[in-house]
């Protein structure tokens, strides 16, 4: 069983899904309705954000190289536009490629288009920002930190709480810090793999880029009094029920935690976070995969142990082959060698102006555009091919919003004759890292870290109603 303090903290931070479920429609109506009359006048009135029932949503079929069960409904969730739904409980929503960077500068992903990925089905759906607290704790000794486990009756390793912060405290007591950074799911594009593997069957839209605003993690840890013996910093959010699967806890080494770039974000593109993107506070680890960007962050543990084996999402899941490349050849080959946690993103680029099956006009200039990003060196060059990779031309780059940001690119090409055109884009980072062209060199058992050059197939026709340019 959890200790009482921890349970109290959880009760204070959220109304659990279980509560809402038990309360039922009547209870929820009471929650909203009792105060709805005063909603206009009362600045403290709760906000209840709903989405319409969508019994017959539009269906799209993902065009994966190996066909599977690839139909996806387009569903609108609270605080979101209609997005591609991969799963519903917990929700996993993917951003259509054309919406990937239709925010500011053609570089940022709008909050209501940003992808959603959860692990445990019990997610926070109701949070009072005045009652929310972030607790910073210390775990001493070389033994690994062990999370609580109601299923086996295991208590969490003992910790000492050294700092408790409200959202007001975070805003009032620390310098404000903003950074533009990409958040990409480790398994983005998993559905594109060949052979395919179980897991979230994503196309390329589990990625986004936002301007995150909040406080530097190093400032919070300094205030908490991080010791010279601390090795790892652990992060836990509110998405868990006591009888649920392994708690979603992530860890980063102290050196990364104190680098002045890792931050706690209470705002995203200048506004509070959507609930499904981690309201009211999430971790941002620029350059590293989204798995580290813990949502609904309410617990930080400074641990003296470097042993992360008891944390399921560090010691068992989100791991890649520790074999130099992180990939296995040939694809599908058995691998029983060492594994390590996935960390830094690899350079990638996408076309956002056109999707498979688009029609362009023969003999007329076509404007292609998209984005590129990497793990933190910044983008040096983006090349574009309209002939399946035979010839490449350098695209024009958009505004530079920092080395962790999407870098917009654009280029024009003219299809000379009617027929099929394979559009490809390839980015090179400032460190010289570029994208592979052979997907067979880009496969691993969990479908993580794909960054092969992707292709969009369009068709040029001589006569059509609209000028594409």
């Amino acid at each position: 069983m959890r200790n009482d303090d921890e349970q109290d903290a959880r009760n204070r931070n959220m109304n659990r899904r279980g509560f809402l479920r038990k309360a039922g429609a009547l209870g929820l109506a009471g929650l909203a309705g009792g105060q709805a009359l005063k909603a206009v006048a009362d600045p403290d009135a709760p906000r209840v954000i709903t989405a319409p029932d969508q019994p017959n949503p539009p269906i799209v079929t993902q065009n994966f190289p190996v066909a599977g069960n690839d139909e996806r409904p387009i569903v609108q969730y609270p605080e979101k536009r209609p997005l591609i739904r991969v799963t519903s409980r917990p929700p996993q929503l993917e951003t259509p490629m054309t919406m990937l960077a239709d925010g500011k500068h053609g570089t940022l992903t709008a909050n209501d288009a940003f992808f959603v990925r959860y692990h445990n089905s019990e997610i926070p759906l109701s949070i009072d920002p005045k009652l929310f607290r972030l607790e910073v704790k210390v775990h001493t000794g070389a033994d690994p930190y062990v999370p609580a486990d109601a299923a086996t009756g295991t208590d969490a390793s003992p910790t000492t709480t050294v700092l408790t912060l409200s959202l007001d405290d975070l805003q009032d007591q620390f310098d404000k810090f903003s950074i533009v950074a990409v958040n990409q799911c480790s398994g983005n594009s998993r559905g594109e793999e060949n052979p395919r593997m179980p897991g979230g069957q994503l196309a390329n839209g589990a990625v986004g880029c936002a301007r995150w605003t909040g406080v530097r993690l190093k400032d919070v840890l300094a205030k908490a009094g991080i010791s010279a013996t601390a090795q790892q910093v652990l992060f836990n959010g509110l998405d868990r029920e006591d009888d649920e699967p392994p708690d979603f806890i992530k860890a980063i080494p102290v050196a990364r935690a104190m680098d002045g770039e890792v931050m706690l974000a209470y705002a995203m593109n200048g506004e509070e976070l959507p609930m499904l993107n981690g309201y009211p506070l999430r971790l941002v680890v620029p350059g590293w995969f989204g798995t580290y960007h813990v949502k609904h962050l309410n617990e930080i543990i400074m641990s003296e142990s470097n042993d992360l084996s008891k944390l399921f999402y560090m010691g068992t899941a989100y791991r890649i082959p520790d074999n130099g490349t992180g990939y296995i050849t040939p694809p599908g080959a058995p691998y029983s060698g060492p594994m390590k946690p996935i960390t830094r993103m690899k350079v990638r680029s996408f076309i956002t102006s056109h999707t498979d099956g688009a029609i362009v006009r023969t003999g007329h200039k076509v404007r292609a555009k998209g984005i590129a990003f990497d793990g933190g060196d910044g983008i040096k060059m983006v090349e574009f091919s309209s002939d399946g990779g035979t010839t490449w031309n350098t695209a024009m780059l958009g505004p530079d919003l920092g080395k962790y940001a999407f870098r917009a690119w654009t280029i024009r090409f003219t299809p000379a004759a009617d027929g099929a055109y394979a559009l490809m884009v390839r980015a090179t980072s400032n460190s010289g890292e570029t994208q592979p062209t052979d997907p067979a060199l880009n496969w691993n058992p969990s479908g993580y870290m794909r960054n092969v050059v992707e292709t969009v197939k369009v068709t040029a026709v001589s006569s059509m109603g609209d000028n594409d340019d």
Partner: protein
Amino acid sequence: MTKRFFGKTLLAAGGFAALIAVGVTAANADGRHHDRGIHLSDRPKTIVIDNLDTAMFTKGDPAAAAVAQAICGDCHSTDYPTTQPKLSCKTWAAEIVKMGKTFRAGIPWQEDGVTYTQLNTILVYLADNYGEGSASCDLTAIKTAVPGLLD
């Protein structure tokens, strides 16, 4: 307009940057003093998504689909299995075992009286309707990997 008015007034009165900041935030409904361009509401936020959890097993034998709906759907929406690639029966069995062991549905499985017969019904159902077929299914695999349930 109000914000600009505050700013201009304070500038005229002496141009204290700090006071301008206070003047700007004072115009916010919450009266927060830390706003430097970002407004965070103090009001509790609730989203309602239960009405969107409508995933159902629609293919194949309705009786088997009902078993799968009840047991798989107890912990997660059933679009988790129905969006997977066409997996082999061996891989489907491994996924069911993973739910029982790694994700600990094994505890409620036992508490709820879930049987091997039911799990094998699910295995064959998934293999037939969302996989490569059930011809190669090993119906002892789940029992071997997850001991302790009723037959």
